[in-house]
């Protein structure tokens, strides 16, 4: 789209605006207010939970037990107390290990597969792509019994390895998204690289990966967010092994296990949410840039 010259501005025909009759104007104003008041009300409802979580995380223990809503005094040390109650740094480290290794593995495993399912042409490609879609829709609960027993035989239950390793063999949702994006790359780019004598691996690592950066960033982001928030997986495999707990598992057990008050619990909750919120604002920019940078669409 960036290659197009801006359309030549056409001189607008002068429009003579007739003053609208008063009842129409009043009705329009009322409709606008009604529209926006609904929007404003919904916005308040959506922000409300965040606001009260943060407010409670700054209250004293006594105050958190009272129906008062505004903290006085502000007790910032709640955030430090979280670390005394539970090994949060340990959980954070485990979470990063899980998210990081799963995301890198997903990229290594999924990009070549998406390439073979979009750029390369071969018999049975569409049938295999259908299988990828089936794998994507499959409820995870359907396969956990054999998988759990499989990892138990390898003596890996109690670690996060059963969650990380499968991603190195490609993730169905990521393959699907990447493949959809690779399909939009004009064949002329790839053909000209082939004419220059580049092998498929070279075309993948130079031409395709470079053009598909925004899509790759997006799937990496999705995978990171999913693994960071994942609860079912870490609970299933590392639930009995506290040294391998992630933030999600640790947070879920936080209040029950340590008998802590709501103010400290909310401080821990807010701390787990902050990285995601920061990532969202950082990545929102990356998304917009990614979209504008794709001069791929001709």
């Amino acid at each position: 789209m960036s290659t197009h010259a801006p359309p030549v501005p056409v001189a607008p025909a002068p429009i003579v605006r007739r003053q609208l009759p008063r009842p129409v104007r009043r009705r329009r104003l009322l409709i606008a207010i009604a529209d926006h008041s609904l929007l404003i009300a919904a916005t308040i409802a959506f922000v409300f939970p965040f606001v009260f979580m943060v407010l409670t995380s700054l209250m004293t223990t006594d105050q958190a037990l009272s129906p008062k809503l505004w903290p006085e005094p502000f007790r910032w040390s709640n955030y430090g107390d979280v670390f005394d109650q539970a090994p949060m740094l340990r959980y954070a480290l485990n979470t990063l290990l899980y998210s990081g290794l799963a995301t890198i593995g997903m990229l290594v495993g999924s990009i070549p597969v998406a390439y073979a399912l979009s750029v390369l042409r071969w018999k049975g490609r569409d049938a295999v792509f259908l299988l990828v879609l089936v794998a994507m829709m499959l409820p995870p609960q359907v396969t956990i019994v054999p998988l759990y027993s499989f990892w138990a035989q390898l003596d890996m239950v109690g670690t996060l390895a059963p969650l990380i390793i499968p991603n190195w063999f490609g993730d169905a949702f990521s393959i699907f998204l990447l493949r959809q994006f690779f399909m939009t790359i004009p064949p002329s780019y790839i053909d000209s690289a082939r004419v220059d004598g580049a092998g498929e691996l070279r075309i993948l690592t130079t031409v395709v990966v470079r053009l598909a950066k925004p899509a790759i960033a997006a799937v990496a982001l999705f995978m990171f967010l999913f693994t960071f928030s994942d609860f079912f997986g870490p609970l299933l495999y590392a639930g009995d092994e506290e040294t391998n707990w992630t933030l999600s598992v640790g947070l879920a057990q936080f209040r029950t296990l340590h008998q802590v008050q709501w103010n400290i619990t909310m401080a821990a909750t807010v701390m787990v949410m902050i990285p995601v919120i920061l990532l969202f604002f950082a990545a929102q920019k990356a998304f917009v840039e990614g979209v504008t940078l794709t001069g791929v669409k001709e």
Partner: protein
Amino acid sequence: MSIAPATTGALDRPPSAAGDRRRARKRARWRRRLIVLGFMSPWVVGFGFFVAYPLIATVYFSFTHYDLLEPARWIGTANYEYMFSEDRQIWGAVKNTLWLVAIMVPLKVLFAFGVALMLTRARRGIGFFRAIFYLPALAPPVAATLGFVYLLNPATGPVNAVLGVVGIEGPLWFGDPGWSKPALTLLLLWGVGNTMIIFVAALVDVPRHLYESAALDGAGPLQRLRWVTLPAISPVILFSVVIGTIEALQLFTQAYVAAQIAAGSASSAGDPSNDLGYPEDSTLFYPVLLFQQGFRFFNMGYAAAMAVLMLVVTLAITLVIVRNSRRWVHYAGGGR
């Protein structure tokens, strides 16, 4: 004539040249196959180990007694017989999960659509509002659930405090079997962002000239919504209903965490092993029960049988929705 010698010279070797070419082409074809196989190899291994094998093995395990310690023992259809005749808990769990499909999913789609409509109508600050409505969807489910259990905490939670100011006595929310599912629904509505974003994108794509010609024909705002907007975005409605249903059938984390925290708040001596479904099995959804049977009680054969039923029901419900959709979904270009 002068080129004849050259031609005959070239014609001396045609059979072998053609054979070379054929062999070269064959080799090239094999090379291409090997390249495809090389690129596909991660997925081939992964699909075999983590999808195809467990899918078949689940069906096998569903006919066995298996507790992980001893090898699986074949017991025929005993698991299914128990499921359909004796197990009291499972039908409660099925009912709870169907409640979500019948009530939570339509509410969520409707709500997402409403918010998206408001967003596309706002003249200014769309980016700001979109961020506000999208952020809760990103909040880790465990954190969001903890937040809501606190907010809806009957004694000291801000929601009942605010309701009290207005003169309404708030319900016990996660502590009342009649209110626990509505409370979970509120939590899930808060996380409506993903669906909303899809609706916003679809609404922006509705061709403007359709609205203009409808307005020229004298259609009011409601009629335009009914006869222009709804048909134009019906594929997206179908998509969000299908995805929402699949998600509802799999709901686990929020129910698990809410039950555990709410039970812990009710009795300070919380025994985490008996909290699932609190209060009174009202949040014991199908995946929660499956987890309990398989990984708390280690009735893994029975859990496998539940997994098979879940697969069948998921397929059936998705199929029914897609089948019925042919009557109301309109695809642009006239193709139905």
